[in-house]
């Protein structure tokens, strides 16, 4: 398994704790499926905790962007939590740092939905 995703709910906010690699094929598909499942259940306030994600290829970055857009189109929001130095580098290189809402701690991320 490239990527492990655990789901947790805090009120109407869903947190996906992700560990592993988001890469072309398996990892990207798992991310897509996990977000789809939430949106299908009407849960469109989503935090992706990327603290355990060590590697995101360009397909994985694309998948993050897609899930961001899909969630927005469904009237919700998808935010990022706990970026490692490497993933921040990748978002900077791709000029996506300002596209995403990014948080350093869970509490602040949760409160941002209020």
């Amino acid at each position: 398994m490239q990527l492990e995703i655990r789901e947790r709910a805090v009120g109407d906010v869903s947190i996906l704790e992700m560990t592993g690699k988001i890469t072309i094929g398996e990892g990207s598909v798992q991310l897509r499926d996990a977000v789809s499942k939430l949106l299908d259940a009407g849960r469109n306030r989503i935090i992706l905790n990327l603290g355990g994600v060590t590697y995101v290829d360009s397909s994985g970055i694309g998948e993050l962007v897609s899930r961001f857009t899909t969630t927005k189109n469904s009237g919700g929001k998808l935010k990022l939590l706990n970026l490692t130095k490497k993933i921040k580098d990748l978002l900077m290189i791709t000029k996506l740092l300002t596209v995403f809402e990014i948080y350093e701690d869970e509490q602040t991320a949760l409160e941002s939905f209020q």
Partner: protein
Amino acid sequence: MMLAENVVELTIASQLEFIDLVTTLTDNVTRMIGFDEESAYWVNMAVRESVANAVEHGNKYDPQKTVDIRFTIGVDALRVTVRDHGEGFDPSTLPDPLDPNNLLNPAGRGILYMRTFMDQVEYERHPEGGMIVTMAKRRAPQPISESGEGAHKQDAVRN
């Protein structure tokens, strides 16, 4: 059969499952020649992107077509070429992934990755068909061998 003494070649069928084999080999080559963790990480990523493109856009997952990867361990730099057997393309006509209008595109960042992580990236059409991309990453300056000229070739691989 003929191959310079500092070359390693890997050929895979066009399956995404095989990309990990290529990146692991990449890690072993970069470790063998003394790249630091950080450089090795980004070289790994660039190789992944180039091989994924060759499988996906070049060979279009055709199981009969291979992706041919070649590592050349130079004294100054590691050179990696990735060749596919597809129709080729013109990289100068691609949309710019950093254009504000394109920031939300779900794809189109692979070559940007490669150009960012490597010191040099060049695309050519292979004379016998397909694309070949040549990427280079400089090595840290090598200590000058005390045993003179003769030892240099070995150093290229070992250090």
